[in-house]
């Protein structure tokens, strides 16, 4: 991207509130993957004569989201009807909030790699219901129709609209990560994009530094954070190229096509909407009195930023490990549980590193959920393992092997250790024997060390470790070898 150009981007994020029932009826929200139209009733399919009744649980979660994102919360907000025809929209209007949304003027701290963290302003958060889902019969002349599944219709959402404060695709990516993290921590949403629990639309324009905002383009069909980043990158370059040729940017909606890695204009007919918003006469104003807001504030857990700071200060974790371990509420809770077993100041950094390197590596390697691993490697057993390291009974190398075994079998670390011959060998006679044998096996390294190449000692330590079958402590071996070779 040319240095003189600046990206102006704002994101609209739809997030599913983690309620058990829908926003305006008592149908269950667990319809993802269930058979189509198995979570429906007269209300959420828009039968004649039905009326909406607000789910208080959704209000509470939306208030929590607003608090977690530092918004001002309106005591009285208004539900409005957004009118448009589409087969997935049962009433031909969506109940949303328009002129008076629940919350406004929030902010979110965003950490971008290699840059100081910045604050992205939030314009508004409002509550709305989801539409159903169309299933198109593709690629068949015979199946010239679409099917509609209303399991999603009426699912509670909040739409979180950022201010146009985002300046790069990387910032957009980091913003989404921070948003997801904070909403998961607050217990507001699971934010599972694959289940459609988090959806993103992006608004983007380009300007030369110091100039007013240019014409913005909306990008839809962004199915992952990566898609958002890639689409913004592409669209930014497309707009610069057009502007540099003297062309004007048309205000339009474009769709991201991940296969060809490009945006293309949506057919204009589909976006020529006048939504004719007006207050929904079926719903009284939504009250979020101070008492409710304060109650939700008390329920709000420690948010990621605060937790990260605590992990660094109390557990002595590095910034990067702390960042990894606060990546989800579940993971951070796990770390806290392990820390209760271990000695925070000395042993927890070790535990943290084990979790960050071995445990998470194992998860991504096998694409498993953290929750499945927590069942297998409880905080207690990981704590025990950490204490074995702290007491010098096993080496770090060995601890990784034992953890791998724990992940596979779910067995107790001490049991595994016993089976492997009781852990690290500290017996000096045995150690001395391995050291001497290793020296005998490595004449070249010995000569190098003696001629001043201290680093060559690594090869001798390695040989000794091999002889000990990993049961020796490399630090001790190193010390013994140095003593042996000392002039």
């Amino acid at each position, binding site marked *: 991207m040319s240095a003189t150009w600046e990206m102006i981007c704002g994101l609209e994020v739809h997030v599913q509130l983690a309620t058990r029932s829908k926003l305006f009826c008592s149908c269950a929200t667990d319809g993802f993957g269930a058979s189509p139209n198995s979570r429906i009733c*007269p209300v959420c*399919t*828009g*039968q*004649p*004569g*039905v*009326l*909406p*009744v*607000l789910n208080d649980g959704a209000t509470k979660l939306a208030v929590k989201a607003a608090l977690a994102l530092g918004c001002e919360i309106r005591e009285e907000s208004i539900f409005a*009807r957004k*009118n448009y*025809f589409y*087969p997935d929209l*049962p*009433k*031909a*209007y969506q109940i949303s909030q328009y002129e008076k949304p629940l919350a406004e003027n929030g902010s979110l701290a965003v950490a971008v790699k290699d840059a100081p963290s910045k604050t992205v302003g939030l314009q508004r958060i409002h509550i709305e219901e989801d539409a159903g889902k169309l299933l198109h019969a593709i690629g068949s002349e015979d199946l010239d129709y679409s099917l*509609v599944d209303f399991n999603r219709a009426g699912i509670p959402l909040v739409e979180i609209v950022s201010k146009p404060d985002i300046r790069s695709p990387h910032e957009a990516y980091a913003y989404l990560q921070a948003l997801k993290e904070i909403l998961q921590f607050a217990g507001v949403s699971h934010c599972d994009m694959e289940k459609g629990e988090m959806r993103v639309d992006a608004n983007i324009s380009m300007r030369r530094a110091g100039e007013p905002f240019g014409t913005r383009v909306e990008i839809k069909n962004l199915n992952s954070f990566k898609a958002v980043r890639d689409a913004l990158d592409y669209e930014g370059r497309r707009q610069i190229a057009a502007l540099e040729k003297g062309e004007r940017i048309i205000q339009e909606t474009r769709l991201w096509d991940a296969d060809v890695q490009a945006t293309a204009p949506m057919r204009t007919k589909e976006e020529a909407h*006048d939504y*004719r*918003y*007006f207050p*929904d*006469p*079926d*719903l*009284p104003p939504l009250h979020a009195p101070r008492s409710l807001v304060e109650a939700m504030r008390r329920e709000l857990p420690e948010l990621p930023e605060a937790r990260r700071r605590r992990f660094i200060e109390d557990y002595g974790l590095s910034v990067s490990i702390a960042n990894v371990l606060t990546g989800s509420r579940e993971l951070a809770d796990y770390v806290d549980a392990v820390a209760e077993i271990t000695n925070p100041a000395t042993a927890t950094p070790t535990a943290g590193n084990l979790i960050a390197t071995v445990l998470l590596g194992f998860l991504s390697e096998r694409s498993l959920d953290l929750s499945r691993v927590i069942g297998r490697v409880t905080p207690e057993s990981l704590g025990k393992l950490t204490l074995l390291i702290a007491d010098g009974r096993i080496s770090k190398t060995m601890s990784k092997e034992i953890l791998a075994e724990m992940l596979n079998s779910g067995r107790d670390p001490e049991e595994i250790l016993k089976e492997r011959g009781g852990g690290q060998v500290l017996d000096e006679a045995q150690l001395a024997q391995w050291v001497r044998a290793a020296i005998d096996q490595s004449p070249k390294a010995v000569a190098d060390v003696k001629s001043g190449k201290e680093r060559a000692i690594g090869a001798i330590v390695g040989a000794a470790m091999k002889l000990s079958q990993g049961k020796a402590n490399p630090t001790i071996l190193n010390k013994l070898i140095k003593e042996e070779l000392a002039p």
Partner: protein
Amino acid sequence: MSKTLPPKPRRLKGGDGALSAAAIASGVRSGEASAEEIVRGRLDAIRKDDPTIKAFLAVFEDGALEAARAVDRKRREGGKLGRLAGVPVALKDNLLVTGTISTCGSRILENYRSPYDATVVGLLKSEDAVIIGKTNLDEFAMGSSTENSSFFPTQNPWAPGHVPGGSSGGSAAAVAAGFAPVSLGSDTGGSIRQPAALCGIVGLKPTYGLVSRYGLVAFASSLDQIGPFSRTVEDSALLLDVIAAKDPRDSTSKAAPRNGGYAEGIETGVKGLRIGLPRQYFEAQGSDPEVVSSVRESIRALEAAGAVVAEASLPHTDYAVSTYYLIAPAEASSNLARFDGVRYGLSEKNAPDLGALYEESRGVGFGAEVKRRIMLGTYALSAGYHDAYYEKANRVRTLIRRDFEEAFKSFDLLAAPTSPVPAFKMGERMKDPLSMYLADILTIPANLAGIPGISVPSGLTSKGLPVGLQLLAPAFAEKTLLRAAFALESMRPFPRLGSRD
């Protein structure tokens, strides 16, 4: 007083058509009457006379008899019978009854089978009422003559060739003709009170929120309210007692003050009651002098009974019709959007694409008046016009509401004609929508203000057409309304069709 009573009207044979709901319920409860016999009598009357009147879109012969037999069985087995035991009730066809067709008087719902009971229907059933059928209406309750029904018009039982009023014309005609002692309608701008007036019966529009709208197919959600038709004031009180209940399924519903008890103290009279006569209502455009004089005579009777009568003023009355014809169509344009041919109702399945499916289904399914109002409402809400029309109408609505608040500082009730004219001839106003809209000029303001109103028979014109007197009260003051209506009913005996007096 009796000089205004005309010669006895043509009598429709209706068996026990003169029995009030209260009398039927107490008779069935005590075992003096059998619900089956009562219902059979009404079904006979319907079979005989409804081919002429055409009040019903559907008659539940089997279902009603079965329900009546169940009531009788329950009594024989010593079960506790409800407050409407064995009472035949007719329902406007925009109220949903599980498993039956609810057309709303529209082609678009001609075959729509209700998957659930409206809250009021559930309440009626739980009090052992017997639903005998669904009555005709202007399509989606849009009209004042029932001529906008997509199926057929309904005759005024008092005067063949005349309209019964609307939009609940079928429910009003059914009660006037003695097909049922009571029925339910809905009132968005006068759709209960105006047909009650034109058919010479009692019709009550409760305070907005007093009766749940769940299961009433919405026309204009901020104005719609379900209410009873009856031949006696007491029966309307009885029905209101049953249907007035806070409903967890309707967020706009409210609990009745003191839990109802609407028939209690109904006979205490009007002594000391302050009744205001809104000047503007007596000077309404196109008022029939005979209507005004009948209403004034009724008011003199109330005054003679001890009411304190004085002139009142509702200064924004002139704006009510235009305000209503922005707000009601705006809400309707959104409420009726769901009839899109996708999930239920009429669907032009051979349409070549989605746009055509919408256009053809709605084009064929909706009648002219419904389309006119959808277009009006869509326009009023459109970007660029929203503030000038919809928003402004809402501001005027507030002024109209304040007019009433101001008037009710000095008066307990307001009294006026219900309709400026008696029943008009069929076809007379169909060519001119504006003249039809003006039929509701005296009833619309109460809907805009959310206050209750009742129409009570006042007398007959020289041509023998019924005149209705309208009483309006502050929100939730239905008891005052019913008390005054009852007093008037006792003082101004009114002939009934289909009675065996």
